[in-house]
């Protein structure tokens, strides 16, 4: 730094590096599922979903209808909760004394209660299984979600009015860390970072997985790729998630929650249909979903054994950090904090 101005920015990471990719090679496919919620601990459901979809792609299992709906509901709830944290802490970096964060965390708590109702855990859910979901949702889940969906939309629009039109937040984040559309694509950014720069690319629309092709929603896009637009995109996505959840709530079908697997020996809880040890055929698969931070992909190479031969996680937070130096050099210290806030990284995912 030279006085207030930042001359050079160096990223020192690796403090939370648990070498998940090495550990995963020692454990069977089902044992690896808990790893995936600990990479992006703010969006555990989407982590599980991505890994499970990769293995299903490898073994060509087709998941029953109700499991698709349950996965979509859980993924969208997780996106809303994760964006609550992201938007709140961004406003915090702009200097508000934790007021917006507290309000948003209060909403996030309600969603975590829903998770607890569905799968017993609030943060590290470990809810999805290869071929379906581990448990069906209790009868009082949908009514609880319905009441939540009644009150959340106007609360989010209240946050939008309070934060997006706030004179000081506009002054603090407008024009900071601007990335053009071409740069965003070249730096292979994804999620709100990419859409903030104006590129309308959302994997839920481009490559619809689970039940996303049956629901109606829009992609939120910013126009001039600065910290303010990424913040606006996240707020708009929260509203879209609520819209998806309403449609899922009344379109969900009854039926089995887990695919019938061929070598079914030991069965999991409830209506057990999956074998404890899964041996996918030799080959490789790359499956990716739209996690709240971007394109979360799992590249699995299998050699027919019980454990994956190579287990690679394409972490959006890690790759979204590539242009960090370009964004912060030249700005002041106060801006550097806002830039990091707008990138919205989760260190567990950056370091894997």
């Amino acid at each position, binding site marked *: *730094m030279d*006085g*207030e101005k930042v001359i050079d920015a160096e990223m020192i990471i690796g403090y939370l590096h648990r070498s998940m990719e090495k550990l995963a090679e020692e454990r069977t496919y089902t044992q690896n599922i808990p790893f995936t919620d600990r990479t992006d601990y703010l969006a555990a459901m989407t982590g599980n979903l991505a890994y499970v979809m990769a293995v299903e792609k490898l073994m060509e299992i087709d998941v029953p209808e109700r499991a698709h709906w349950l996965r979509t509901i859980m993924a969208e709830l997780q996106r809303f909760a994760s964006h609550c944290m992201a938007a709140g802490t961004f*406003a*915090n*970096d*702009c*200097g*508000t*004394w*934790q*007021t917006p964060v*507290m*309000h948003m965390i*209060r909403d996030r708590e309600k969603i975590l209660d829903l998770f607890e109702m569905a799968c017993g855990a609030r943060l590290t859910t470990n809810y999805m299984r290869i071929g379906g979901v581990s448990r069906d949702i209790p009868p009082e889940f949908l009514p609880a979600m319905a009441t939540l969906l009644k009150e959340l939309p106007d609360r989010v629009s209240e946050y*939008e009015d309070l934060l*997006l*039109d*706030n*004179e*000081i*937040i*506009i*002054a*603090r984040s*407008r*024009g900071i860390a601007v990335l*053009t*559309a*071409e740069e965003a694509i070249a730096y292979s950014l994804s999620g709100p970072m990419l*859409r903030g*720069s*104006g*590129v*309308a*690319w*959302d994997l839920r*629309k*481009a490559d619809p997985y689970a039940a996303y092709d049956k629901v109606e929603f*829009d*992609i*939120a*896009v*910013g*126009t*001039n*790729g600065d910290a303010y*637009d990424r913040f*606006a*995109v996240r*707020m*708009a996505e929260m509203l*879209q998630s609520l819209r998806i959840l309403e449609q899922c709530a009344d379109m969900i079908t009854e039926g089995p929650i887990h695919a019938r697997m061929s070598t079914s020996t030991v069965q999991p809880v409830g209506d057990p249909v999956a074998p404890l040890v899964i041996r996918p055929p030799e080959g490789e698969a790359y499956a990716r979903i739209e996690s709240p931070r971007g394109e979360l992909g799992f590249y699995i190479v299998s050699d027919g054994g019980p454990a994956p031969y190579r287990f690679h996680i394409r972490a959006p937070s890690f790759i979204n950090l590539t242009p960090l130096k370009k964004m912060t050099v030249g700005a*002041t*210290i*106060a*801006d550097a*904090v806002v830039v990091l806030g707008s990138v919205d990284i989760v260190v567990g995912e950056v370091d894997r």
Partner: protein
Amino acid sequence: MPILAEWYDFRDLGNAMGALQDQILDWGAPDWVPYVVSGIIAVVGILLWLLVSQIIFIWIERRVIGLMHNRIGPNRVGPMGLLQGVADAIKLLLKEAVTARATDKILFWAAPIAIFIPAMVVFAVIPFGEGMVLSDLNVGVLFFVAIGSINTIAVFAAGWSSNNKFALIGAMRQIAMLISYELVQVFAILGVVIMVGSMRMQDLVGWQADNDVWMFAIQPLALVAFIIAGLVEVNRSPADTSEAESELIAGFHTEYSGIKFGFFYAAEYFATFALCGVIVTLFLGGWTLWGVEEWVPGFLIFLTKLYAVFFIFIWARGTLPRLRIDQLMTFSWKFLLELMFVNILVVGLETLIWREQGYDAATVLPIFGVINWVLAIGLVFLWARMLGHGTPRTAGKRATLTQELGAIYYEGAGSPGA
């Protein structure tokens, strides 16, 4: 003014003090003894009041901000958490005051004291009641500004001696802001002094009592500028860039711990009390309330107003995000200062006409009030637009929603769907 000026007339503690002084003289003490005695009693009284209200206000502030955050706030220590302030004080006392090896020992030790003194000395001038002002300087208001300017040195000493890069940046930021907002503060006070005609605090209060009008009704612009400049000087919420947690850990008092940090913490609160006191005296009619002070003791009215203004500061702290240092500077130089020049020009003209023609106050003051209010609102909008506030660049905007996959909406990328 007090109906019965006996010593037991508690509407104004000044009477008791006066009676005490005569008593000492009767006992044949030399003439300077009563001054010393009353001085000490008054100082001890103010200090006690300050400490007690600080402890209460630590609790109130954290409680109010807690409620704003939709959480409860401190309720562990003592009934309803009331002893939170005391707990903080004891904690700070017991904590070990670490001095880093590479610090500049003498300055590092002197800085907290140097910050604490101005925060205390300012109270010599603030009138709590009709007779209750420690030293009735007839340059009272100027004294307040002068003492305010001293803590720039103390801030620099703290930042420089703790030999820590962020502390120095914090100190430099604070100095830059103090200097630029001192000008605004002086001009805001100038407007008031021109209209009242004297710098003595008691005259200011007296003038507002006689004309049965509060100064902020006549000069809103001066009040707004004074509050903003005060917020910056005391470095509270929207302008707490010098100890912004997210950027500079704790600004110039990063290296301090234990009771030294306690001094900084207390100094910040006392400075805010002093600021609220001056705001109340200058703009909100000090200890008068349209004749109510005949019955209700003057200093109680003064304290309620003071705490009300303090509440506004807490409210600002709970809601407003922080401005960047250069935005704060441009705000002061390019916006507030010009408004203050215009304000003084207008007020000067008004008082000139008023004094020359010799109109009586009742007719002319409402007219001045209206003129100034219209002027204030018009000026703020006009000047803001001139500085580019109304333009789309600074308007809040939602994200655009689209169904078109792969389309590019970037302003620089030409039409969508590229």
